[in-house]
């Protein structure tokens, strides 16, 4: 894992000092809330419905045991004993007191963490594949590239007041586990015919009220020009992105309106100019960063077998672990979606337990997934049973990864001031309705995603089943959609028709799963059946 040197540390420390001064000015009345707002937003501090919310960055979703432990301690000391892991691979605390925030940031800085650029119209925390460094199918570890971009984008002086927020994802395998093409910039690290490593750039993807899949803008940017190319992409956007309408300000609208070809032409022109400026960090800097990720300490000759004699364990094993590139190891996904729970929430004790397990059994590493679960990336197969027992005892043993109860839900009207509807109670109801695990397994992979408003933080457009909360004359109403995907076969979901009440949408959902069960062909997931048979049979069952 990457480790700060004195420079990285100095940047974070300077930020804590600056923010402490700003909070003091606010508390003394020197700054009004209006003046303070843009400053706090630069530090991930939002004012929500009931309290301040602090969003802490977890760069590319990777963290170590010490960092995770502190996240648990902060939940105890400054919040109500829990934290919420987000679809941006970050963590949010929902009940924060303003005067505590400088101390929280100072504590975070002691473990190389911060809340920089987790909000505002700037380049946000960069996301990546939560299986990076462990996945059997990756070309290289994408995180050194993400770290290079993290440093480039941190306090970037030209791009702090973009038309709108800007999200970048970096992956390095054909299996997309990071919804890469639904980002403002989606980068896939690839190898060209000459065997060189470089970056394939997609620009202009996104969710929100106008979801779009990012078109490919450049097939291959040499690795040592990636920062310059990103700089060119951003400069064109900063200069020409729309600023007249907040809802048309994301880069996807610019790319859509002028067309991918014209956008590409402008970027290439800017890129040619930028290459003359020598802005790119040298190979030696990339090598320095990459060395931190090279070998987390995997052993060879490790026993490559698991004892499956405990049937409950075997179910979890099959559902919640994935192959590791190193024989004898597995990737464990810890579900934060127990039946009736709040998706993505974990208590301070649970967070600390996951920290301990990472230190003891996963080479001190954890990942946050954009599906709001936690990964232990490097667990020896021989340790899986012990890990599962400890997780299960702490309420973290749900064997439901990628099943219907592994729901993504945004905070919704329980916290968020923009919300139309409550996402969390709906997610709880759905997981209770489908609590029978045999039934869930029979339904198979089914990605259900809920957003409390059109901003789509819950990625509903990309759900095999998506649910969107809308406000219908003051009454919460839910729109249902089918057929989205954020994987390599990225697609956007289609709306079924008129919306439903909270209970009504659960019923409709159940009817839709029945259509699937009746119509599926051998080996088909819900998504596949939907793509084959189309909306009509589902519509008939739901509205008929």
């Amino acid at each position: 894992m990457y480790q700060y040197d004195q420079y990285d540390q100095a940047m974070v420390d300077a930020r804590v000092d600056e923010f402490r001064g700003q909070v003091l000015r606010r508390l003394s009345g020197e700054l009004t809330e209006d003046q303070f707002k843009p400053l706090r937003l630069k530090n991930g501090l939002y004012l929500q419905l009931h309290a301040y919310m602090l969003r802490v960055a977890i760069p590319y979703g990777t963290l170590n045991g010490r960092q995770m432990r502190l996240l648990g301690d902060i939940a105890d000391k400054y919040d109500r004993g829990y934290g919420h892991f987000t679809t941006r691979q970050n963590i949010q605390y929902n009940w924060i007191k303003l005067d505590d925030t400088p101390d929280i940031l100072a504590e975070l800085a002691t473990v190389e963490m911060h809340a920089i650029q987790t909000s505002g119209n700037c380049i946000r925390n960069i996301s990546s594949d939560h299986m990076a460094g462990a996945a059997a199918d990756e070309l290289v570890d994408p995180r050194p590239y993400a770290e290079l971009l993290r440093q480039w984008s941190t306090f970037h002086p030209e791009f702090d007041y973009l038309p709108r927020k800007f999200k970048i994802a970096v992956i390095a395998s054909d299996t997309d586990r990071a919804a890469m093409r639904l980002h403002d910039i989606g980068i896939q690290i690839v190898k060209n015919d000459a065997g060189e490593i470089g970056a394939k750039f997609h620009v202009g993807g996104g969710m929100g009220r106008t979801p779009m899949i990012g078109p490919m803008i450049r097939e291959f940017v040499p690795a040592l020009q990636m920062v310059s190319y990103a700089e060119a992409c951003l400069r064109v956007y900063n200069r020409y992105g729309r600023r007249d309408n907040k809802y048309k300000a994301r880069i996807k609208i610019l790319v859509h309106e002028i067309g991918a070809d014209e956008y590409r032409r402008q970027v290439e022109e800017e890129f040619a100019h930028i290459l003359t400026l020598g802005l790119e960090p040298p190979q030696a800097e990339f090598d320095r960063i990459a060395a931190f990720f090279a070998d987390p300490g995997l052993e060879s000759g490790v026993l490559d077998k698991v004892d499956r004699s405990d049937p409950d364990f075997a179910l979890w094993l099959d559902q919640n672990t994935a192959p590791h590139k190193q024989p004898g190891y597995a990737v464990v996904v810890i579900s934060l979606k127990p039946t009736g729970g709040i998706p993505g929430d974990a208590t301070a004790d649970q967070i600390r337990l996951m920290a301990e397990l990472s230190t003891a059994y996963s080479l001190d590493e954890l990942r946050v997934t954009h599906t709001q679960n936690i990964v232990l990336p490097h667990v020896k197969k021989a340790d899986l049973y012990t890990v599962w027992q400890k997780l299960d005892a702490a309420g973290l043993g749900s064997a439901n990864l990628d099943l219907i109860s592994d729901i993504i839900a945004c905070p919704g009207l329980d916290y968020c001031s923009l919300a139309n509807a409550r996402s969390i109670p709906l997610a709880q109801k759905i997981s209770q309705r489908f609590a029978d695990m045999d039934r869930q397994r029979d339904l198979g992979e089914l990605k259900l995603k809920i957003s409390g408003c059109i901003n789509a933080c819950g990625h509903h457009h990309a759900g095999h089943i998506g649910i969107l909360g809308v406000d219908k004359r003051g009454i919460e109403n839910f729109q249902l959609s089918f057929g989205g995907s954020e994987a390599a076969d990225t697609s956007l979901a289609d709306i079924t028709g008129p919306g439903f009440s909270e209970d009504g949408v659960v019923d409709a959902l159940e009817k839709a799963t029945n259509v699937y069960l009746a119509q599926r062909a051998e080996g088909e997931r819900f998504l596949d059946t939907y793509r084959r048979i189309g909306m009509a049979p589902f519509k008939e069952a739901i509205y008929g």
Partner: protein
Amino acid sequence: MGETLLRYREDAVTGAPVLSLEDFLASDPMSNGAAAVRITPGEDARALLPHLGRIALIEVTFPAYTDGRGYSSARILREQGYTGELRASGDVLIDQLSHMCRCGFDAFAPAKPIAAGAAAKAVATWPEVYQKTVDGRSPIWAKRHGL
């Protein structure tokens, strides 16, 4: 306007009238003395590139601090070798000064005055910088590798 000029340059302020981009481009390139020109967020800084040699002051306006187009304008001008005064005017707040300096601004005409002492402190916010821009500061990656 209650503006006070914060200026980080040694030379004297030009006495030339500040022209709009349109008026400047229509003016006689052979006329005596260096010119001053104002560009707004939607105007293309690159339109000035053929004329940089005869410009003493470019004022880049910020009608709202949230409109960051002027940062790109400033960098583009400096990247192309402009050495005259580059002034940010309008909704320029103390918290933006350090980034503006990094993009090449060396003078500020904030609509709401900023005290010189506070401004100097704000400009020095960052002990180190990650990016190479046009301010001549050595980025962290260069320091790491003795470049």
